[in-house]
């Protein structure tokens, strides 16, 4: 053993390592492999992996897409009922353009996510189950297309959780999932 304050002059590399420490290093390497393996495997065996194509898009071009999405959708008093399986949402200070929408439970929708101005957050949870929540980052200049399927009907609440200015806390929206 040696002092951490003294220069080492002997060949410290060849000093044998304590057995317990070797076992611990082995456990650590194994655990790291488990962490890596499970995360990678979840892409195949799990239902939640935030994987989808991203396209560069100017805020103006994305606004045109949103306008077209709204024009094609059926407008109800609860929100836009998309014509197809695409949903377009843009964060803007301080709201979400494209929301609210009315979706069908069990149907897969492609969410097209972007921002008109600054960075925003897309934090979603069912109104009655706050622990079931997730967040995606919305960036101006990028359109992220991510498929999502909601099996449980209900109202889902959207919170901006990336700081976007003094009105940040008021930036909320919702969408509805019907049977």
């Amino acid at each position, binding site marked *: 053993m040696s002092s951490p*304050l003294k220069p080492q002059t002997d060949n410290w590399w060849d000093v044998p390592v*304590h057995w317990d420490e070797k076992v611990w290093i082995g456990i650590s390497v194994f655990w*790291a492999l488990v962490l890596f393996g499970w995360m990678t495997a979840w892409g195949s065996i799990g*239902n939640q*992996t935030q994987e989808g194509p991203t396209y560069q898009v100017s805020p103006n071009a994305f606004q045109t897409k949103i306008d077209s999405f709204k024009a094609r959708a059926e407008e109800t008093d609860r929100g836009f009922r998309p014509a197809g399986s695409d949903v377009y949402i843009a964060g803007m200070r301080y709201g979400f353009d494209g929301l609210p929408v009315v979706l069908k439970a069990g149907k897969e929708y492609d969410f097209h996510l972007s921002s008109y101005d600054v960075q925003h957050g897309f934090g979603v949870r069912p109104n009655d189950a706050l622990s079931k929540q997730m967040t995606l980052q919305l*960036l101006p200049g*990028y359109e992220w297309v991510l498929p999502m399927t909601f099996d449980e009907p209900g109202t889902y609440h959207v919170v901006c959780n990336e700081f976007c200015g003094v009105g940040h806390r*008021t930036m909320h929206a919702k969408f509805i999932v019907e049977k």
Partner: protein
Amino acid sequence: MDPSTTAPRSGLLGLFDNPYDEEGFRTCSVTGLNIHRSVENYVKLFGLTAVVALLVGGIAAIFVAMTRWELVSLTSAPDFYNWLSVHAWNLLIFWMVFMEIGILYVGGPMVLGRKLPTPSLAKTGWIVMLGSAVWINVELFTTSAPDSAPLLTSYAPLPSSAGFYLGTIVFILGTIIAALPFLISIWQEKTEHPNRSLPLVSFGAFITAIVALEALIGGLITYVPTYLWRIGIVEHIDAAWYRQMYWIIGHGSQQINLLAMITVWYFLTHVVGGAEVVSEKVSRTAFILYLFFINMGAAHHLMADPALATVWKEWNTSYAVYGAVIASMIHAFAIPAGLEAGRRKRGQGKGLFSWLMSAPWKDPVFSSVIFGIILFGFLGGITGVIMGQMQLNLTWHNTFATVGHFHATVVLGTTITFMGLVYFVIRLLFRRKLFLKPLAQLQPYFYAGTMSLTTLMMLYLGILYGIPRRHPSVTDIPGTEFDFAAAEPLFWVFGVAAILAITGGALFILVAVGSLLFGEPTDPSSLVPAVEPVEDDDTSLHAQSVRGTFTLTLVFLAVFVVTYVLNWYLLSRLWHIG
């Protein structure tokens, strides 16, 4: 009291008046280190400046925590964001970085028994750092529309004041200047003694400095173009580019904290607990792993981002970063094992944990360091790995749990460790008795306990209630019927714990400043037992059991596995994504 060891108080409260020989050296009666005046004075200067930043950031903590506890709702939204920025910059940056320059000077010239090379650079660095820190604080306090409070991240294209970006560039340059004397001292040492290895503490400080320079260069790559964009010379700034560049320094600066803290753990467990290095090879290899892999840790900020491929995310946060996770797990074993083996060798414990129970728990240096080690590992390390898993990050990103994670690392780990280091510096470098000693002994327990509770509440509020970070109100949201009022009971616990934790931080300032003003000058060997010299002995290690450490690390692993499984369970309850 031996008059030769206590200098009379003269200018500057006698804080810089230790007795030195003709060449400016003195031998520390506790550590046996040969300390030069130039090194000691700059360590004191940077340490004192850090404590001032801690005070400013701590005052801001009152406004931040008491706004988030909506029963109090202390400030309005704009003021909240300004206070939050002041809180972040003073505690995450200024308190840490000023301490870390001091730690480099301890780990380099002080441990090596050398003069501080080019003290003029240290002085210039300190002046530039202090000036820009004050400047940044002024910018933070006076932020107003159309600029937004930068918080820590100043995410473009949301603009902050031009002076803020420029002040940050100057602070980065000042820090690089202040780090140069350390690097020169390492270069001098290796030139004079090419065939001997640096002491482990110096080696750790050297790796810290390299990681720090990488982070600081990342900072220049980020802030110079952002400043040019802010003043109109560059027309467009890309949000994805900014995020990726920013996190080189944004997380890199926190990795400086990690490495500096671990270096301090090796140093202080040795000098106040009798720890020895059980394997130079293993501990140094762990530092090398950090050198190559810890930077990838920054990628976990980008897991919920568009514009980055899944393969990029998986490679950086898992395959590569686990090189750093393994390094942390190695240190988590090596440091307590060094304490256990060192104390057993001296006959200070025969049972499984008696080496630990018999340790100097009344010494606030020792208790601070041990709390730092345990809490960093159990709360900071585990949460960091979990939120760094690509899919799990979906449920952590930008929630209050993220804030919980970095309070576990930066406060429960680094700040508590650095408080222990300040107590150590007060006694061994300023050579003062601790003021209000019973309070000083109590402070690490009180602070670690209350701050842990505060941090746990942040984690629970974020994960179990999805409370967003950076919101001044969540139980009453203008313009919507929806709210997070279900979380109010936990906010009660959070609010009370935060008040107590801030009180614990104030006690630290009281003891530290009180000791310097009123503490009795004394020879430190009357306060701390001298460090017994370590005989380099290859065989003695295997005569010592480290079973206690092995047991503790298995407990740690069990907590890690259970927390990991619970987080995947929570994620699996979500709808189909991707």
